[in-house]
């Protein structure tokens, strides 16, 4: 008796397993993003609801034509005409990119160090690195607020150790934003780096050493290239959410030069300008589509290979 190939066993439970989450994600994730793109193209209407009518299928053909008639690029022209938005987007990309570089420089030695530990210690250490990721981003950032205050723990330490003579200003500076972003994303950088470093065949490194390769060159020509997938995954995992970061710049940064996440938040909560908020969010989404696609492609390939 041969076993039945899996394809032929498909029954209604399998169909449901696919369809229920699929429909949920279409309705509550893909549809909202489509609406975001749609509303970012609508006229700023101050009436209630504060935007032009959305795609209304109940209105039949008329609804569809209204949908296309209402499309307008005015909100994007606003983005182009007001330097505030462009400056904020550029600042966010720059901070996210530089923070990602810092995260790589800090996260790599940590991930590498963990792979050198005894086998039993490794699982515990990587779990310890991951635990802070699950505490609220708000609380992690708030913890830094009190440390970075003018009379906070950091300045106390710097003054006590005579590293500085006068307490430097940390809050409202970009340095504070970098500290906050690096702090909150470090576990997301260490985990993929550790996962790839751990898989590297020890014999390759031994072979290089036996052939007289100096240690820095082993690292540069063997370890680092082999860990490239982890570097890419970690970098994207940190860069993508960091561009749209809100809590860190809001609590630690300055209001004068906001990041794009603060612009979206304030356009929505302070100015109640929905189309502007939607246009900025849609522009941010459009900017992140490429890095998102690369990350998803890599992840899915890795999962398919493991399956």
């Amino acid at each position: 008796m041969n076993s039945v190939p899996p394809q032929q066993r498909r029954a209604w439970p399998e169909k449901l397993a696919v369809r229920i989450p699929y429909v949920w994600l279409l309705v509550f994730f893909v549809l909202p993003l489509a609406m975001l793109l749609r509303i970012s193209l609508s006229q700023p209407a101050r009436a209630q609801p504060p935007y032009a009518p959305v795609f209304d299928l109940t209105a039949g053909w008329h609804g569809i034509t209204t949908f296309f008639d209402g499309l307008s690029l005015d909100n994007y022209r606003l983005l182009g005409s007001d330097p505030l938005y462009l400056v904020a987007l550029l600042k966010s990309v720059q901070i996210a990119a530089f923070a990602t570089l810092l995260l790589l420089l800090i996260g790599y030695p940590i991930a590498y160090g963990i792979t050198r530990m005894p086998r039993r210690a490794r699982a515990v250490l990587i779990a310890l690195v991951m635990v802070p990721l699950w505490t609220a981003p708000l609380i992690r950032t708030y913890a830094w607020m009190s440390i970075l205050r003018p009379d906070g723990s950091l300045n106390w330490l710097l003054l006590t150790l005579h590293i500085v003579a006068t307490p430097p200003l940390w809050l409202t500076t970009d340095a504070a934003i970098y500290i906050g972003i690096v702090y909150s994303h470090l576990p997301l950088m260490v985990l993929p780096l550790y996962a790839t470093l751990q898989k590297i065949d020890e014999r390759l490194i031994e072979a290089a050493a036996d052939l007289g390769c100096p240690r820095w060159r082993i690292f540069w020509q063997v370890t680092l290239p082999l860990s490239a997938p982890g570097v890419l995954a970690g970098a994207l995992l940190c860069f993508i959410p960091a561009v749209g970061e809100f809590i860190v710049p809001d609590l630690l940064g300055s209001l004068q030069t906001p990041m794009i996440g603060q612009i979206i938040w304030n356009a929505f909560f302070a100015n109640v300008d929905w189309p502007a908020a939607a246009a900025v969010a849609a522009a941010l989404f459009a900017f992140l589509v490429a890095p998102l696609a690369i990350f998803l492609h890599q992840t899915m390939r890795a999962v398919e290979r493991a399956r």
Partner: protein
Amino acid sequence: MMRKASAFNLAAVTLGLAFLYLPIAVLVIYSFNASRLVAAWGGWSTRWYAALAADAPLLEAASTSIRLALVAATSATMLGTLAALALTRVTRFRGRAMFAAMIYAPLLMPEVVTGLAMLLLFIAAAVDRGFWTIAIAHTTMAMGLVAVIVQTRLIAFDATLEEAAMDLGASPATTFRTVTLPLIAPAIAAGWMLAFALSLDDLVIASFTTGPSATTLPIRIYSEVRLGVNPEMNAVSSIMIGVVGLAVIAASLLTKFRPTGRISRL
């Protein structure tokens, strides 16, 4: 065979962990500060924890957050487990790549974008925003997390165990109940706990999708801390860190130290 850790390796790991834990330790220590002044140490005291008990709006927000996390974690676990089964056991179906992308993307997207997008949906649907709209948004975020965790488990255990059960005459339903489910149960439990933590911790998505009727604990904390550091907020933050820390430790014990059912390991 394995090279030993150098002083540099040890220093990197030690400093890394210190960097991750010191800010949290400072926050927790200052929650026991008797002084109202944040900078000055006035001796040990639990007065801020006592003050929490009298803070009615905060307790109300905490109760909302806990109920919300229970609902969101449970629905996310059901949807996420289904999604993981679909991704690992149903090999080919139309839109499979799209399905996988939709599961991972919400975890990665900036929260301001997802939050605003979901709000637009709720407005267009003309529903009253509050507890249930946040629950839907948190479910959507957390189901991807559960799916990833359960999927890892489904990949790790030996699929021939399921085939063996079916060859021996078990129906797909019996196989699922008696073989698959017990093997993935630890991952499902871990996924539930992490989804609970995700919902309890969230500020941005909840702020966008809530209405006047529901204030969660992070929304309440945010409205206080944006005005400055405040010892009562240190106390409530410390409690949240404790609750989430316990859930995460339990979750990692569940996923790490349980047999995967692989024949080779028996």
